[in-house]
């Protein structure tokens, strides 16, 4: 039975795909984006114990060399996350497929589908396939929210039970992508083409970065020319909330203006896209 570390489950989410959905966030991500809003999802806990002594609610304990989280004592003050030097969280729960299916069954009548997100959920493809195989049978729509680090074409069985992928394209320029995320974008761009061909590209998300106009333009034009009118593009406004120091130093604390965002939307439309929204 496959299992995965879960950072968070949102039983009712209206922002992780169409309609009301359960969104499941799996822990760990190969990318380390400057603007990551949830840096505590990047790495697995190394059980250093630094958070244990800082917890004001005595909800963390070091037992047999492992940090153990007591969810009922936790007040969700997030002191542990702020203090963690490893971009991780002690508040991770491992679920196997059966356990996760019990959680999903509880809300099944009220949701249109589920979204597996992260972190980078594609770090756990077997777990995902196990979940989707069952949720698909229940008539639920099954979406993946991914940074495109792993090639979807290598997981044909998973793709059979997946209705679509919401793909982040962080940057098209390879060097800039490397700086921005600490990884190359070769697979991301291949996934963009592969998913389009498979008919499994649900939407593409691009974060508009302040002070990087040339890169913003290059990425938007590339994506729009590829997806044309087939797929929705979401232009996400950079927001400094939750961004760690390293990112703030590069991107600052101000957001792109509504006017700027609208001009990028127009650019996408001029480049062939027809469904472009600003968030």
């Amino acid at each position: 039975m496959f299992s995965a570390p879960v950072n968070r489950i949102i039983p009712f989410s209206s922002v992780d795909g169409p309609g009301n959905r359960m969104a499941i966030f799996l822990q760990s991500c190969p990318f380390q984006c400057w603007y990551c809003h949830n840096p505590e999802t990047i790495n697995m806990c190394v059980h250093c114990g630094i958070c244990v002594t800082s917890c004001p609610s005595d909800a963390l304990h070091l037992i047999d060399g492992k940090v153990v989280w007591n969810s009922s004592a936790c007040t969700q003050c997030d002191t542990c996350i702020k203090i963690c030097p490893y971009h991780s969280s002690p508040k991770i729960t491992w679920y196997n497929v059966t356990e996760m299916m019990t959680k999903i069954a509880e809300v099944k009548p009220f949701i249109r589908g589920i979204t597996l997100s992260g972190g980078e959920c594609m770090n756990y493809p077997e777990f995902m396939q196990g979940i989707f195989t069952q949720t698909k049978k229940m008539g639920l729509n099954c979406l993946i929210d991914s940074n495109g680090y792993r090639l979807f074409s290598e997981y044909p069985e998973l793709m059979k039970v997946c209705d679509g992928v919401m793909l982040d394209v962080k940057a098209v320029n390879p060097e800039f992508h490397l700086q921005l995320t600490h990884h190359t974008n070769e697979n991301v761009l291949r996934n963009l083409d592969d998913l389009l061909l498979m008919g499994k590209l649900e939407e593409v998300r691009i974060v508009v970065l302040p002070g990087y106009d040339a890169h913003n333009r290059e990425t938007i034009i590339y994506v729009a020319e590829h997806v044309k009118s087939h797929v929705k593009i979401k232009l996400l406004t950079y927001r400094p909330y939750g961004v760690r120091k390293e990112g703030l130093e590069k991107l600052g604390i101000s957001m792109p203006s509504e006017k700027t965002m609208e001009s990028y939307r127009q650019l996408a439309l001029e480049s062939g896209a027809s469904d472009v929204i600003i968030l």
Partner: protein
Amino acid sequence: MPNAYEIITDTLLTYQQQVINLAKLGENTDTTIPYNPEFKKAIEEGDICDLFEGALPYRPRYIAPDYKILMEKGSAFLELDPPNDIWEATNALMIMYRHVPSVTTFPVYLGALDELLNPFITDEKEAEKAIGLFLLNIDRTLNDSFVHANIGPRDTLAGRLILRQTEKLQTAIPNLTLKYDPELTSDEFASLSASVMLSTAKPSFANHRMFVSEFGERYVIASCYNGLRLGGGGYTLPRLRLNNIAKRAVSIDQFMNEILPHYVDLMNEYMDQRINFLVEKSSFFKSNYLVKEGFLNQKDFIGMFGLVGLAECCNTLMHVSDSNQGYGHASNVDDLGVTIIQHLDNLVAKHKAPYSENSGDRYWLHAQVGIEKDGPDSSPGCRIPIGSEPEIYKQIKHSTRFHKYFPTGIGDIFRFDETWKKTPEALVDIIKGALNSGMRYFSGYCASNDVIRVTGYLVKKSEIAKLDRKEAVMNDASVLGQGSRDLAHAFDRRVQK
């Protein structure tokens, strides 16, 4: 009850509110109906509440006229011919509303407005203006939040114009319900309704299939969320205060076998007395034009057996002191709640109710929403106490265990944050799921809006602020909202993010 001098010198009351209060004072000097001293004692001790219906009923509590008759035949008494266009139709309705009584003196049911008005629409722009003025007139002249209109289940242009103007006007009156059936109501119309609900706290969603299975097609939603027969209404509505009654019990067995039956008997006797008087002696069913012209049929009235405070009742009987650990959170406490309601339903069903031949000769249960004087230790009907609500899906599932027992009204309210305004279709997913799971009535509102839902009715926060500044306001329910805010934390529901 304040005396005449107090009513007449109260600067917080409008003229109309003074007239209503003085009439009640006069009515209550009558001693014709020999109410049981035990019943009076139960009222004084807070075990039963008569909801201030007055000593001698001269009209049923809730009246739901069949306004279609006005559209088709006009009214001899009102000297109105059948209307020919949207202006005549809205004008005829406004005239008739003035002549539809109720416990509040205002009409608690305004009709299936979309069905009534849709045939008169020839020009969309003109119709929208007429409907906008009509809704404005209702808000400014029928100054009571229990005034209630219905739309749906079918998607009509009139329905859309009503929703559009409702959103534009941002008024607390009228209360509005969408009769919702995913098979009859388009997704688009449901989404539009959800979107208006997030901006104006209305319409609420009624489980159309469920109501039709109990009442047939001819049902209405009136007042707060009361299911009643079209062309009929509710005779009377007293309520058991289960939270207080439970304190008298030494054990669950004694509560079930002695205490509950005793109070059910008192309620039944009281309801019998009032309904007998209303039908046999008062002039209403003999001479009122609504009856004579067929807008109402006495046989379609129902006696409503109300209750409040099931949550606190269960917690008391199970010795739960922390409301976050009891009713709504612990399955054994919830199971007791279901057992109590089943038992109560059986007790009520055993009694042969007078003049209830179309209602199976019985009184029908109603989960009353509470009144401001109930205070924080008495939750509405079968609801989980405010401040102790679990996650929304758990709250919905909890609701569905109880809703089937209450055809004449039960519902729950959910407060959403701003982000849901962008995705009304996601909210419709939740509502669909809730109704399919057996929920009867779903209300929602957005935390940040001026118009909000208190317990079953709507108020404007800006009107309550006026009351706080000691200024009189038009809506006579605003003072109730003020009380519920101050005494029952009714504005502090959990926000769904």
